[in-house]
């Protein structure tokens, strides 16, 4: 049964990219009424999510490398085509993107400053992310890769915290510098492939046929990996990330910021590894080493922070270290664990950032030293916080556990030493998360604090689906793993 038989013929993938963009335009046109904007944005993100779920239900068992594909000529002068493709991997990531954007819009509900523009930028970001996860022509991918930066630049720079200017500029310069390296590598690969085959093309499927001498392969692999490693972020290219995440506006943008990190990993899986298999094989130990360093360094840094958001930012780096380790182990189990962990981490950390945003709006601070004793004041909020913190540290039965265990099992099978080295990292994770929970929920409450209201209906609407998902994916991750089976190009 192919996808085409179950779905009516329609450019669904273009719709995923176009719908949020249209929603953004509508938001800007209706900027006089904040209420209209909110509902417009919510309707847009919900519709996008509905399409994603529809695609998931209809296509997840498709055979062949692509579940859905769209193709049209764009710039024939350079063999650039408008090609979108959906496979199991992009299916999961588009689903995650669409879901987190619904959450983001709900979180942005109380935003006071320039709400229409804020929502419009969120939607443009969703469009860019969809494009990144769907494009299978290199230039098209590059286009979305850069377009995605612009809304993020403004979201951090305009609505961010105190150091927003510095964080925004740093984020922008870092990531762009990396992607320029990828651009040169892309052009070089295109020309090398053209010289070999006689037909110049930027299509991923064509470029995969290129045969390169090892030196060239190393260089081009380096160019691609620089872009992806900065985005992922892989130690030592991670320094922009804690700033960007901690300064990103609490109302809805920050959990989406987390999605940017996934684009780095996605880029490696989709482009860097399959295009340069020999260089990848040789680079895996280095990748694993950097992943382990990242896992520990970030966990240690998280332990030393007092700012709740910074703790979560470092925890993201630490988790992505584990994801990268799974990729570097290079076997099916570890790899599936990595993808699963990437998705569940998006959900859990997104939820944690959301809870912190609620906390911050009540207490006015994110500093651990000024928090404490929350359990007595707001038990529902505290319970949610505890729940997601436990999910984040990989409590069995909750979302992250399945991914982590698969990564460790897979890694142990091919590289037992790496797995053994990674285990203490999980202890570290437990340490900083417990410190976080302890510092906020228990202990003495600051004397001068006013009464704290508990969760509102809107906030429950945000958190409840995330809680359900976290439990569900912890108990039965199989539906997410199923579409991954047919993804090509990997072990």
């Amino acid at each position, binding site marked *: 049964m192919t996808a085409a038989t179950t779905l009516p013929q329609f450019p669904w993938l273009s719709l995923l990219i176009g719908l949020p963009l249209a929603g953004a335009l509508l938001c800007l046109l209706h900027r006089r009424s904040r209420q209209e904007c909110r509902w417009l944005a919510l309707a847009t993100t919900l519709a996008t999510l509905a399409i994603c779920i529809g695609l998931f239900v209809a296509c997840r068992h498709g055979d062949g490398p692509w579940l859905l594909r769209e193709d049209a000529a*764009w710039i024939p002068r350079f063999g650039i085509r408008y090609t979108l493709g959906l496979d199991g991997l992009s299916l999961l990531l588009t689903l995650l993107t669409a879901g987190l954007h619904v959450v983001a819009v709900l979180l942005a509900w109380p935003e006071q400053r320039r709400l229409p523009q804020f929502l419009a930028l969120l939607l443009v970001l969703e469009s860019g992310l969809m494009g990144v996860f769907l494009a299978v022509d290199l230039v098209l991918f590059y286009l979305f890769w850069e377009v995605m930066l612009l809304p993020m630049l403004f979201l951090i720079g305009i609505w961010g915290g105190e150091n927003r200017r510095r964080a*925004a500029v740093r984020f922008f310069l870092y990531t*762009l*510098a990396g992607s*320029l*390296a990828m651009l*040169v590598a892309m*052009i070089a690969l295109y020309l090398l492939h053209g010289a070999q085959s006689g037909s110049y093309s930027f299509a991923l499927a064509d470029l995969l046929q290129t045969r390169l001498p090892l030196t060239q392969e190393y260089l081009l692999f380096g160019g691609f990996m620089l872009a992806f490693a900065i985005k992922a972020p892989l130690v030592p290219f991670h320094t922009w990330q804690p700033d960007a995440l901690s300064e990103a506006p609490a109302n809805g943008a920050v959990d989406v910021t987390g999605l940017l990190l996934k684009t780095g990993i996605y880029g490696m899986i989709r482009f860097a590894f399959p295009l340069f298999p020999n260089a990848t094989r040789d680079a895996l130990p280095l990748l694993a080493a950097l992943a382990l360093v990242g896992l520990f360094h970030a966990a240690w840094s998280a332990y030393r922070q007092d700012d709740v958001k910074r703790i979560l930012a470092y925890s993201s780096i630490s988790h992505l270290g584990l994801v990268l380790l799974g990729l570097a182990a290079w076997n099916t189990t570890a790899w599936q664990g990595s993808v699963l962990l990437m998705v569940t981490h998006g959900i859990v950390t997104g939820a944690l950032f959301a809870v912190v945003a609620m906390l911050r709006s009540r207490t006015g601070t994110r500093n651990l030293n000024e928090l404490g004793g929350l359990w007595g004041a707001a038990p529902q909020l505290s319970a949610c916080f505890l729940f997601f913190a436990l999910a984040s540290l990989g409590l069995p039965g909750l979302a992250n556990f399945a991914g982590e265990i698969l990564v460790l099992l897979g890694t142990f099978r091919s590289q037992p030493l790496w797995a053994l080295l990674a285990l203490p990292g999980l202890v570290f994770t437990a340490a900083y998360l417990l410190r976080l929970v302890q510092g906020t929920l228990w202990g003495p409450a600051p004397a001068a604090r006013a009464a704290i209201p508990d969760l509102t209906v809107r906030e429950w609407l945000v958190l409840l689906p995330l809680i359900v998902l976290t439990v569900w994916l912890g108990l039965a991750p199989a539906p997410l793993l199923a579409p991954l089976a047919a993804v090509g190009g990997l072990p």
Partner: protein
Amino acid sequence: MENLVQIALQNVNLAAIMPSLVLVCFGMGLLLINVFLPRGTTRPAVWISLVGIVVTAVVTVQGWGNPQYGFSDAVALDNFATFFNVTFLLAAALTILMSDDYLRREGYAVNEYYPLILFTTAGAMWMASGTDMMTIFLGLEVMSISLYVLAGFFRGQSASNEAGLKYFLLGAFSTGFLLYGMALIYGVTGSTRLTEIGAYLNSHSSLLANPMTLAGLVLLSIGFLFKLGAAPFHMWTPDVYQGAPTPVTAFMSAGPKAAAFAAFLRTLEYCFFGLKPEWSAMLWVLAVLTMTVGNVIAISQTNIKRMLAYSSISHAGYALVGLVAANEIGYSGVLFYMLAYTFMNIGAFAVLILVGKQGEENLTLEGFAGLGYKRPLLGVAMSVFLFALMGLPPTAGFAGKFYIFAGAVKAGYIWLAIIGVLNSAVSLYYYLRVMVYMYFRDPTEDYAWISLPVSVLATIILAVIGCLYLGILPNEVMAMAKTAIF
């Protein structure tokens, strides 16, 4: 004597100079009409010059795919010339649209301004279609002399006077180099016809290593490089660009610069194809120098007009990369890039005109604080231009840089492409800083002085459309640029 006149008028083909002829006729007619217009009445002059440009554009476009040669092969109106002519006409039209209100504000609403722009454009057209050194020289002089006047147009302002005088003195000096180079080449080959020079050097290959040929090539190159503001012949650019009236600066950095590229490209390709490795190596060094110098100095500027002047040097450097590549992709990349640069640069200058306040006192970075909130549409337009100048997709700047760097990589100059990309990364910083001021700082002013005249608005809208069209659907124009290469 009679004999000479006969030779000079051989093979007259007016069709080969028709576009510039029309334009010059409009310019001269305008000069005459100006005499009868009361002082301070500039609207008719604006309209007539715009009509002149539109008529010329129509005539120019007729020539696409229908090359005309004339005057004993001293002029060739081929696709190459036509492509550049359209670029010049666009630059001139956008400049004229944004000039009137600015000149009025600054108190120099003088009619002579418009014919001068038309003459500059005509000179640029001769440079692009010149296939004889004399035609190129003629075009260069017509273009430059009009520009000297335009640069010093604000005769009551010392900065503008300085710009005019500096440009004139240094320009005259560099013209000397150019002419000397031409003389030497004539001495070696006995011809001023580009194709004949090329053929002669080709059949007498020992002459290629002759010091006189090489000296001629170098001197010619210096003349052209001066006009395109390439390092180390760029010293005049910042002062001239800053001192000249803003629309003139915008025009200078787009039209005449493109003209210099056109003539330089044609001369190198027609006459000196035998010396390709030599001049390619020379331009390699200069391209790197030009990009780097422009970008590094632009970082430290706080006056946005001056910053754009330095950035314009670096953009000349990017375009030089296309010449270094010296292949079909590189050359057509130069054509495409100059067109794209016309849109993004003139657009940025048009925003400067609006924000600048009387006497141009509001051109510092602080002057742009919070502009994006007080004037949202202006902010969005400026963002588009800045993103295009940075070279981000989906704008014309990305398509242009992609084109040129692809040419360089194809020619094996991978390091040059990498240096170019690194330079782009440096340039991100200073362009981004303008955005930081526009959006990430609170407004300190209410920008009440900004009025939005329809004509300037038209410039900005056209430039935005150009930036986005060339960025999102570049294929049409890219294909044209490809057929424009000989």
